């Protein structure tokens, strides 16, 4: 190999950053996003296939299976009720699973984060970057059930344009939750505790497949502290054109959940990555 030599200097600007470096910067976010975009360009077909086929199956099974028994829920056609509810479960699965498995693998097996943190990136920026990508993905692919629902007769409405943003906010919260979980779990096998013990009840008791009012009072109360319930309510109010002041409360709960999960994720990831 012939080594590069100093005899041929380059005239471009010097390395390093100009000026001061702030506490939070977008460069790490752009870096992580460029990696994810490169991966996405390779895997978009399988990602999109899964995102569209899963809700279709849910809609066929629940919408038509149960729908023929139930007819309406909350005054909506049950098929439409499920199509909107499944938006929330899609958002949950994309963000929480993506974060749990993705960040665990990158941290422990691929040591990607050791490389990133040797660059001018701090843990809170890394966590924000990873979570925001998953949130964006959840925001986009979370709409898939709605699109499938439209194909099955869900009436179009302008509020549908808000659904990606609801998906983003909810996805951000659950991606941060997943990152936190990945940092406190000793192995990938222990994720089963979270999936079966936390996520499964969470996605069932959120008004996705049946209204929470029909649950026993304690479960209905529990549903109200479930962030996913607030996502479901926001999605239905947007799609069915029922938005009102009460939706600010739903957004508020999700924002609080984001703030809490961000703090926990940053705290525990720091403990894992910085010694």
């Amino acid at each position, binding site marked *: *190999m012939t080594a*590069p*030599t100093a005899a041929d200097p380059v005239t471009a600007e010097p390395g390093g950053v100009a000026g001061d470096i702030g506490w939070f910067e977008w*460069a*790490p976010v752009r870096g992580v996003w460029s*990696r994810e975009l490169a991966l996405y360009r390779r895997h978009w077909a399988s990602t999109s296939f899964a995102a569209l086929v899963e809700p279709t199956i849910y809609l066929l099974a629940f919408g038509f299976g149960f729908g023929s028994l139930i007819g309406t829920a909350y005054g909506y056609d049950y098929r439409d009720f499920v199509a909107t509810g499944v938006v929330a479960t899609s958002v949950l699965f994309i963000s929480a699973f993506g974060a749990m498995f993705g960040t665990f693998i990158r941290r422990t097996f691929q*040591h990607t984060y*050791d490389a990133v943190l040797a*660059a001018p*990136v701090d843990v809170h920026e890394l966590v924000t970057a990873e979570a925001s990508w998953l949130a964006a993905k959840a925001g986009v692919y979370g709409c898939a059930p709605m699109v499938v629902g439209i194909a099955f007769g869900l009436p179009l409405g302008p509020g549908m344009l808000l659904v990606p943003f609801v998906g983003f906010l909810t996805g951000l919260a659950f991606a941060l939750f997943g990152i936190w979980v990945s940092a406190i779990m000793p192995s990938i096998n222990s994720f089963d505790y979270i999936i079966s013990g936390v996520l499964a009840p969470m996605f069932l008791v959120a008004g996705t497949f049946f209204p929470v009012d029909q649950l026993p009072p304690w479960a209905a109360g529990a549903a109200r502290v479930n962030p996913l319930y607030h996502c479901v309510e926001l999605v239905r109010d947007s799609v069915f054109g029922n938005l009102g002041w009460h939706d600010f409360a739903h957004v508020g709960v999700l924002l609080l959940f984001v703030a809490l999960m961000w703090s926990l994720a940053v705290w525990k990831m720091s403990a894992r990555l910085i010694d």
Partner: protein
Amino acid sequence: MATLQAGSRDGLLPDHTLSAISIRGAVKRYGAITAVDGLDLEVPYGVCLGLLGPNGAGKSTTMRMLTAQSRADEGEITVLGNVLPKESKKARALMGVVPQQDNLDEELTARQNLEVFAHLYRVPKGDRVAAVDRALAVAQLTDRADTKADDLSGGMRRRLLIARGLVHRPRLVLLDEPTVGLDPQVRQELWSLVAALRAEGVTTLMSTHYIEEAERLADECALMSRGRVVARGTPADLIAEHAGARVDEHHGPPDRLAEIAELARQAGVATRRTGPSVSVLAAERQPESLRDRLGPPSVQRAASLEDVFVVLTGESVE
């Protein structure tokens, strides 16, 4: 041909009265283990310093402390004038890090790996393509730019790993065991890369436990043992001081070897085991009386940095 970095034509000439790296009294404990134990290390600007030491001497912990991925329990660390850990982000922006462990993104191509780090290192948008192309040229991977990291050979991956740490033209480069586990041919390639860095005046801190690597590449060596620096100097000075000019190797049965070692010890002369022989260091300085009792050596050879390494860091490694 690509250059590794722009040198100091940037008008931001570092203050040469200060060190690029300054570590004073650093201590790092992991439970009952003290990995770094009162480490003092100054790396002047423009110097390639080899950090030598056996496994477990604290080299990697020292490297991690310089990027604030490891926080010292005690002591003061300054990198390029930035006090760690408070100003570590700024320090990290100005230096390049080549880790011991291959942590390339396996699913990304060589080019994409470099692009991600061009973002992380804040290479301005307009310069990013050029910076990545230059780094690919430095790694001699221009032809393999679109090959996934997973499909590159071990040597190519290591070159890419080094190029990744140079994509923003750092003024300081940390190389943690850059050639560990590689074939001699591949090591040779990487050495010319490091030599080029040195020729351009980039300050380099390179940890290694390959003696030859340090001897060939480093302006100066710091020998680490049990978490602190036990000797420091140019390879030639270290050899002259601790192993003299010449080494006498005496072969013989185990009893005779033990006897030789004991006789030398009594005469105050350093020895080390060299496989089936005992080496008397600084043989030219041994007293005549000892020379007579030991008899003619089986082999005479020049003293090496390895002799210094073993004498100063101990015969056995924990």
